[in-house]
């Protein structure tokens, strides 16, 4: 047993860092220990599919500033937590140590999914970490034919970046409409047009069944589709979503259901009841958001930052802390278009600025007579006004 006490934060990325910084902002002066599976200090993931992959951002611009991270904060990098005993208040590490805590933050993020049956061949990449990005970037410099599996946000951004690098790009999407769950069918079709307008091939309803390799059996040469066609590829980037990194908690008694279940204060639940002094934040946390009366898990940058802050406030102030009821926000840069989204998608859609076929427009999503979400292409001011309406539970449709 290694004595530590204080606050132990499992996960040394954005959510964990923001938790630590907020604890210091609020005057907490005990020990803070951050456990990071990767060998790196906290860095930003959004540039990994955009500027950093394109080579227009330097590593300095990707690593996060460590303000408020002082001598009483310790990073344990290249170290994984493998279990937690919430009764004894200790975290088991893959080094064989057990780390004692007074308060615990679970911020382990998510792991990228892969396609079942895809062989582990040279030239096939997932994209989650800066090391993944550096490996992919090096390979892209050889001018390969790129196939992106999955037309979600990561896949779409990677495709746009590769196109910008002058590479031949094909996107394969298993579903008939890209991003339908995230933005609805109508907007999904509009997003698809961003690719085709730029001459990027987008194949919808294209189920991937396997890979073809060269004579050595080591390097990928093509992606095989369910209809029997082979799509030639020197590089395959798989971007088919993520799963919350919660398997290390399997024996902890903590409620796991597509993430770590939390209440409105980000307090971790076991048997439906808050575990004393344990909170979660970021991609791994599935919490009750009272603004939407919905249990949600959000895999975006802004949420990791905001929830890290909220979780820290809860650790310090309990139920006197504000409940975590944000309007989720994310953006995606694809080609020359900035896509911004706030709230949740809903079944009803009202275009409130421009038209869906325009380069710039804004629209609102409604559910049950209330505005629940909004999306804009190149209309940031309009979007932020819609965000206020969502936060205020305004009726749908909003005034145009």
């Amino acid at each position, binding site marked *: 047993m290694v004595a530590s006490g204080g606050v132990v934060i499992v996960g040394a990325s954005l959510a964990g860092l923001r938790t630590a*910084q907020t604890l210091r902002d609020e005057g907490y002066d005990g020990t803070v220990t951050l456990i990071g599976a990767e060998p790196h200090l906290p860095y*930003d993931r*959004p540039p990994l599919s955009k500027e950093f992959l394109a080579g227009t951002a330097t590593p300095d*611009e990707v690593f996060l*500033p460590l*303000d408020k991270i002082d001598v009483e904060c310790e990073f344990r990098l290249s170290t994984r937590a493998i279990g937690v005993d919430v009764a004894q208040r200790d975290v088991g590490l893959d080094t064989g140590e057990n780390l004692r805590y007074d308060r615990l933050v679970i911020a382990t993020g998510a792991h990228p999914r892969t396609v079942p049956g895809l062989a582990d061949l040279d030239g096939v990449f997932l994209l989650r970490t800066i090391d993944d990005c550096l490996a992919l970037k090096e390979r892209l410099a050889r001018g390969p034919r790129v196939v992106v599996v999955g037309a979600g946000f990561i896949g779409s951004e990677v495709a746009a970046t590769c196109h910008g690098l002058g590479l031949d790009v094909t996107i394969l999407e298993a579903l008939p409409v890209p991003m339908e769950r995230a933005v609805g069918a109508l907007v999904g079709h509009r997003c698809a047009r961003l690719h085709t307008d730029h001459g990027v091939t987008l194949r919808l309803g294209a189920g991937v069944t396997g890979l073809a390799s060269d004579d050595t059996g080591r390097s990928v040469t093509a992606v095989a589709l369910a209809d029997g066609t082979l799509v030639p590829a020197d590089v395959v980037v798989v971007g088919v979503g993520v799963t919350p990194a919660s398997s290390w908690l399997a024996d902890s008694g903590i409620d796991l259901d597509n993430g770590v279940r939390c209440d409105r204060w980000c307090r971790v639940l076991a048997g439906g009841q808050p575990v004393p002094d344990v909170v979660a934040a970021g991609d791994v946390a599935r919490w009750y958001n009272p603004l939407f009366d919905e249990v949600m898990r959000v895999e975006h*940058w*802004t949420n990791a*930052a905001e929830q890290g802050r909220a979780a820290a406030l809860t650790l310090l102030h309990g139920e006197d802390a504000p409940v975590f009821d944000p309007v989720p*926000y994310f*953006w995606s*840069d694809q080609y020359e278009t*900035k896509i*911004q989204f706030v709230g949740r998608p809903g079944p009803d859609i009202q275009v409130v600025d421009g038209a869906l076929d325009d380069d*710039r427009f804004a629209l609102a999503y409604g559910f049950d007579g209330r505005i629940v979400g909004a999306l804009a292409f*190149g*209309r*940031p*001011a*309009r*979007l*932020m006004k819609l*965000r206020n309406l969502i936060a205020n539970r305004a009726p749908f449709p909003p005034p145009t």
Partner: protein
Amino acid sequence: MSEGATAGPEPLAHRVSAMRVVVDFDKCKSNAVCMTIAPEVFEVRDDGYLYILQEEPPEALRPAMERCVRECPTGAISIEG
């Protein structure tokens, strides 16, 4: 008390200690996170550019400004003073 005592100019000490917001517009990508934290200081307009509504915001906004510095996804905001 004379009227002049209340209607005079702002004491110099307040002005020299004012906090000043600086944005590196080469880094700004108009993600509008700052606007969600401090809409009285930052506004991203539909021309796609960020506008600073108050370059020297009142001291009461310092915690919000410090959050903007930290939360800007591109690290484009700093404060002087």
